[in-house]
């Protein structure tokens, strides 16, 4: 029989986890509960007059054409960010996996962008593409392409997608590289003897074997594009021009803090909360067990 291990109960373990629990309660649980509560209220802009309206805010939101458009736009935006960032990092990882000399330098350089804060990343790309003085926009003008993301919605969308994808490349790269290096070398050698060209080896052996990594990254990237690119959008376009780059999270901010429609903004937050919970459940259910090659 195994004896159960007994620890003397003491306050120390509770004290050690207390900071994290307090942070979670104060900055996550309390605001979340407030959001749920406020989503059921209508308030005037000065907070003087509050009315409990049950689900009227939800009904109003789903009737709003503008919200549906933003939803579709956000889906497109996150799909593009995930696709672009995953494919570029996959290529980089495949190349870095084959590098023999100077691996440390390559990897360090490729991982750097991850250390850049979203706002700084956004500012960097905004500088490069600034319509009048940016290096890239100037170059584009020189070759006859007019760049002005402050007026052209498609260009603005393109720019935020690039900026957001660029920042996520490092993260994806790390996971892809680790995934590739976990593949036994003899498998690749066996494939080489089996007359598979390097490209064929990649698509028929390496790529299928890193599907669990790819799937994990896909979910992470979509969540990232949904929720963590606020800073980039805020710096580069402020959701404009004409709402062309307004995502769901950006709309929450705009409606709540600029429009001061706290009820409407809270409803959107609650929906996002449900979405992120769903994605997390999905990720745990499928990534932990389901994805097999």
């Amino acid at each position, binding site marked *: 029989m195994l004896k159960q291990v007994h620890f003397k109960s003491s306050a120390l373990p509770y004290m050690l986890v207390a900071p994290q629990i307090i942070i979670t309660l104060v900055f996550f649980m309390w605001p979340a509960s407030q959001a749920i509560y406020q989503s059921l209220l209508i308030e005037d802009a000065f907070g003087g007059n509050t009315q409990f309206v049950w689900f009227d805010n939800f009904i109003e939101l789903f009737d709003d054409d503008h919200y549906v458009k933003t939803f579709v736009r956000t889906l497109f935006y996150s799909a593009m960010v995930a696709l672009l960032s995953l494919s570029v990092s996959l290529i980089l990882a495949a190349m870095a996996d084959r590098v023999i000399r100077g691996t440390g330098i390559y990897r360090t350089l490729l991982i750097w962008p991850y250390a850049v804060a979203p706002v700084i990343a956004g500012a960097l790309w905004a500088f490069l593409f600034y319509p009048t003085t940016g290096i890239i926009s100037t170059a584009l003008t020189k070759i006859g392409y007019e760049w002005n993301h402050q007026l052209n919605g498609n260009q603005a969308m393109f720019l935020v997608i690039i900026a957001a994808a660029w920042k996520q490349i490092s993260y994806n790269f790390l996971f892809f590289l680790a995934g590739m290096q976990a593949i036994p070398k003899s*498998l690749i050698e066996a494939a*080489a003897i089996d007359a598979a060209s390097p490209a064929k080896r990649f698509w028929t052996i390496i790529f299928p074997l890193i599907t669990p990594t790819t799937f994990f990254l896909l979910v992470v990237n979509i969540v990232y594009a949904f929720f963590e690119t606020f800073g980039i959008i805020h710096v580069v376009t402020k959701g404009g021009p004409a709402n062309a780059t307004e995502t769901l999270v950006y709309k929450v901010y705009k409606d709540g803090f600029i429009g001061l429609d706290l009820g409407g903004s809270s409803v959107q937050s609650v929906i996002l909360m449900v979405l992120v919970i769903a994605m997390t459940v999905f990720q745990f259910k499928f990534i932990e067990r389901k994805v097999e090659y």
Partner: protein
Amino acid sequence: MSHIQIKNIEKVYPNGYKAIHGISVDIEEGEFIVLVGPSGCGKSTLLRMVAGLETITSGEVSIAGRKVNDLEPSQRDIAMVFQNYALYPHMTVYKNMAYGLKNLKTPRDEIDRRVSEAAKLLELEELMQRKPKQLSGGQRQRVAMGRAIVRKPAAFLFDEPLSNLDAKLRVQMRLVIKNLQTRLGTTTLYVTHDQVEAMTMADRLIILKDGIAEQIGTPMTLYDKPQTRFVAGFIGSPAMNFIDVELTDNGSSIKLGKNKITLSEKLKHTANIVTMGFRPEHIKLDENGPIGLKVLLTENLGAESVIHAALAGTDSPITIRLNKRINAKNGDILKVSVEPKKLHFFDTQTNLRIN
């Protein structure tokens, strides 16, 4: 014209480490060659150089009359079985075996035919739709061999294929591989560190040590006439005993403690002290024998017994193997003798054979 020709090949790594020192061997068509040696001796490196997975620093390798130094592994017409089998985990057994043929653009019905032929040969028919994860070690091993067979290559290369199996399965697979090779008649290079495997499977052995081929020959040649002390100690289990002895009577006998052993043939050598070797199984209990042994440990295996002892009056270890049971207590003194014809002599400096 030999089938695989290895001419003076060397391997030097970029950091200057020399792994293979000029090895040459001609392998006949259909021969089963085993590369054997302790770990780090360069046996896998040599095999991988033939396979094209390591570059050849100098020298030449040709397979079926074609120089292959600068050819890709896929162009060398070889198939390899890896130590960890290297089965593609995401493919079924069938797809694993068909992968190489598919890459060579073999027609589909031809692939089907060859794969099912190999499956029948290796008794894998029931398992064709399984993934490697659902197979036992022995089954994986057979799939790896099936993958090699379907290619109908000019040569099979095996890199320690049995070392991941348990002892019983290993003996069984040894026979499977050997039978298969005899049946297909494909030239084979086989790497192992297990000398029993090497002795039982090989037509000829290459004994490697520190990147040098110590001796190349049939198992019996290596057992009867090892050319170096290393080969003598490596082949045979338990290993050969070695004692330094003094040559007397002009080389016609040796002095061992107080006793003399008359040799079957006169031994001419420049040095007076030589290393004498004799195998544990060539020692007989003999009441008038010239050698006294103090028993240290007896291992009774039923059919035979192995006695670890020390030469009386010294602490040089001697192992003897008798094909009967024996009741010997620790500290007992056994009198034994060795047939003079079964003695091996080596130079103490160069370790080369002198008789």
